[in-house]
């Protein structure tokens, strides 16, 4: 009989195995030039490296899935393979890195899993920021930021390696480490907060071996959700650090000497019709996409949630009035409402956020209403009434916290829709102002050069898809973690 932990390990390795093979297949496809048929050599060497790692990974999967394997027992072959696979990260393969770490460590606490992704975010950010080295010049604070990032990487790696010795540390050291971790989230790497919370919770006496019930703990089982979280955190971090590490002049000032250049090391995604570096523009565009997406999710979440809660809690006439009014708003498709608002008040980021928020209010209100209707019937609400507590107090303390989980799931899943709507409107010329590097705007320019320079349209589109896909993976993961049927 295999232990639960062994089973989890095998599942993770199997998941990574598929991704590793897909990753190497991607490089093979990229390395082939179709017309005329030939091979792009640097990419083909990359493919060979990936291929070797994939085969090694396959061997690891094989030796892990045999009957006699237990993740708790020492296994020389697995250990050796894991250590080799760790080096996959230098070839750009994060999946072998994850598998290697997972099979190397005996105890896999929540904090450990999150630390893996925390370190991966650091690695990704450093490698993307390092692309600036090839540019003619770099931003003033580039070096400082690089030092900060590398020292954070070292600190986080230390946590990753020695985090399981946490229980043996002195209390003061624990405190200092927690504070440092929390502080390091300031550059945008929110996963450090997850690690800090997990470490703190594990440190509390009596927590060990307890059933894992919170969403944070259950999410660890779902690797797709974690990968989504990885990409989102990476984008948040890069949008915070890019303000200091990327030079704005490449993304915003026109340079007619270098218009419409092919992708190269200096301009990884080429340049557009004004000679602006598309790579830098996409990096800066992450700020807009993320902030518009988050804001136009949080605002309707608050307003719609409040309206839904009030409407369900008070019922009868209040309910009728609020819901009928929202029905009217619901009858206008979000996209058309946004177009109407833009037609009336002009295209700008603020108007865009207002328009998207307004359109999303009814669906949040409906979700919240349904949840609250369910919660209101529970005994603890009746008990609170019997104790003479006021309506507001009951709503705040008993009803809303217990009705919030489906709202969070819904919010995570709709951030993706908000991101798509933002870029769609920008593509139509109705969203963010045209000069702002926003993904939809970049794509709009790219669509004009589809025949001659298709990469101008492809890369920003890929960025949008990856972001939306990440939010959807994360949302699905949170939903599953929250669903009693699945657990």
């Amino acid at each position, binding site marked *: 009989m295999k232990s639960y932990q062994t089973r989890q390990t095998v599942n993770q390795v199997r998941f990574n195995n598929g991704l590793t093979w897909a990753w190497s297949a991607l490089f093979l496809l990229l390395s082939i030039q179709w017309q005329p048929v030939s091979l792009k050599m640097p990419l083909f060497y990359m493919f060979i490296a990936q291929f070797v790692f994939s085969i090694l990974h396959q061997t690891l999967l094989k030796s892990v899935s045999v009957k006699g394997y237990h993740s708790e027992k020492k296994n020389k072959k697995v250990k050796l393979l894991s250590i080799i696979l760790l080096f996959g990260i230098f070839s750009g393969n994060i999946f072998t890195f994850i598998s290697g770490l997972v099979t190397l460590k005996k105890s896999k606490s929540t904090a450990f899993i999150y630390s893996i992704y925390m370190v991966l975010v650091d690695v990704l950010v450093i490698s993307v920021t390092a692309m600036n080295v090839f540019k003619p010049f770099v931003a003033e604070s580039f070096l400082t930021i690089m030092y900060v990032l590398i020292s954070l990487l070292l600190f986080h790696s230390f946590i990753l390696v020695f985090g399981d010795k946490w229980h043996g540390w002195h209390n003061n050291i624990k405190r200092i480490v927690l504070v440092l971790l929390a502080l390091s989230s300031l550059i945008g790497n929110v996963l450090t907060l997850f690690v800090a919370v997990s470490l703190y919770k594990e440190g509390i006496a009596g927590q060990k071996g307890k059933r894992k019930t919170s969403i944070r703990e259950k999410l660890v089982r779902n690797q797709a959700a974690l990968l989504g979280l990885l990409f989102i955190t990476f984008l948040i971090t890069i949008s915070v650090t890019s303000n200091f590490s990327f030079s704005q002049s490449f993304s915003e000032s026109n340079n007619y000497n270098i218009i419409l250049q092919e992708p190269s090391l200096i301009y990884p995604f080429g340049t557009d019709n004004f000679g602006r570096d598309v790579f830098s523009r996409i990096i800066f565009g992450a700020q807009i996409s993320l902030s518009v997406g988050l804001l136009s999710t949080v605002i309707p979440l608050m307003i719609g949630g409040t309206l839904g809660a009030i409407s369900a809690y008070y019922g009868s006439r209040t309910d009728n009035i609020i819901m009928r009014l929202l029905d009217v708003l619901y009858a206008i498709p979000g996209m058309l409402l946004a177009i109407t608002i833009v037609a009336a008040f002009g295209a700008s980021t603020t108007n865009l956020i207002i328009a998207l928020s307004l359109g999303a209010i009814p669906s949040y209100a409906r979700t919240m209403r349904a949840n609250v209707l369910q919660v209101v019937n529970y005994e603890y609400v009746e008990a609170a009434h019997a104790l003479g507590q006021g309506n507001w107090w009951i709503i705040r303390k008993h009803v809303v916290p217990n009705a919030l989980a489906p709202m969070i799931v819904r919010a995570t899943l709709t951030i993706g829709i908000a991101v798509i709507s933002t870029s769609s409107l920008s593509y139509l010329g109705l969203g963010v102002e045209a000069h702002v590097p926003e993904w939809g705007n970049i794509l709009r320019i790219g669509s004009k050069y589809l025949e001659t320079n298709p990469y101008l349209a492809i890369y920003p589109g890929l960025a949008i*898809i990856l972001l939306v896909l990440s939010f959807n993976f994360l949302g699905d993961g949170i939903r599953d973690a929250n669903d009693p049927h699945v657990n």
Partner: protein
Amino acid sequence: MVSKKNWIDRWTDNIQYHYKKAYQNKSWRMGLFIFGMLFQLIIFISYLIRQKKSGEKNIRDKMEKQFNESGRAEALRSQLENQEKQKIKFLNLNVSSSQNQRRVEKLYKEESNREISERVEAYYENDETGAQSYLQTTLDWLSTTGGLVLSLFLAWPMYLFLIVVSLPSLHYLIQRLLMMFFVIIGVTVIVFTLLYFSPSDPATNILGNQATPEQVENFRQLHGLNDSYFVQLGETIKGIFTFDLGNAYAGNERVVTTILRRFPITLKITLYALGLSVAVALPAGIYAAVKTNTTFDQLFMLIALLGISIPSFWQGLIFILTFSINLGWLPATYSSTNAMSLIMPTVVLGTGLMASVARMTRSSTLEVINEDYILTARAKGLSEAKVILRHAVPNALIPIITIIGLQFGGMLGGASVTEKVFSINGIGSYIVDKQFIPDIPSVMAGVIYIAIVLSIVNVFVDLLYSFLDPRIRSRVKNG
């Protein structure tokens, strides 16, 4: 002759029964009064005459007097006072005596009112007194042939109302249609208000800065821009229902004519996309649910997730790049003479719906498959195909229809993007083009008419529910 009388009798009985039932509901009672105004007036007069005759002018006053005199009032008050005192003592509350007095007074009023009403009711019920309530007077009138004919003559709207109220499904339909009507008016108000408070001046937008004051004034006169907010709003609402919204600002064309010309192609693409996505997603989703956790399932769900994550304009561009520019199989832009040019827009528009329907189908089928009645069906020895197709799928259909109804709106809204990518002259691209001017009446009409189409679709989906789900059907029947 006898049988005919029976027939009439049955009908009068029926009418009386439904009238009584409708009368008991407060809002329906209002309807009866309003729709049968003339007839009700006659009855009211006869009711007053009868009251005078029987000398029971104010039964309620009498009952109240009786209530007070019988000592019941005192008893009730002291009982309530006692109750409050007990409560305060038990909960250790700090309540001043005046506050307490007020509360007792309030409770007393409620209780005494209820009891007096009960007494009045009982008085009417008692045949010996000969007094009649208003309802009984009406029913008396209706039981005579003359009264019936008179009521039919004077109050036929009331009978229509009665029919609607007494047939649950018709009642539901009318209710739904009424709601739709109000939603349409609400949508008009919102869209109009948003555009009305636009800071830009349409006259200078259209005519340019060089326009003379006379020209501007003329323009404003022509489009009724000098009227007050409410007049303009009223004109718009009227225009929406009479299909006459005046001329567009730019280009001397009637707004509604243009919209009607542009609508068919959008509807065509949307419906094709709907058909395509249901045809692909439903079988695939069911198959994925039956073969849970197989490679097909996982791969298919990954593709579906990709499908909801892909922005349609990017998908359209990639399609054009691959199939038109690189491979040269399909035309990149739409032309009405070439049916092949519809393929790409349909697929692009349908992708989102396809993906969400597939996900929904899989999850709802999975939920149903674990129910007991599926086990029963298997135990009966039915074939797997029959178990799935006859027992699982119909029960899994409800949430799927919900998601289709919801996504249809998104599709009509999203059509503007797809239309722009493939340069189709549909309603979506019309709205987008006109908002750049900005041509207010055109944008408004486009948005409102799409919302109306959506509302109709929603009513249709709701009716489909009650048709498909026996639980909803029974809820409709029971009001």
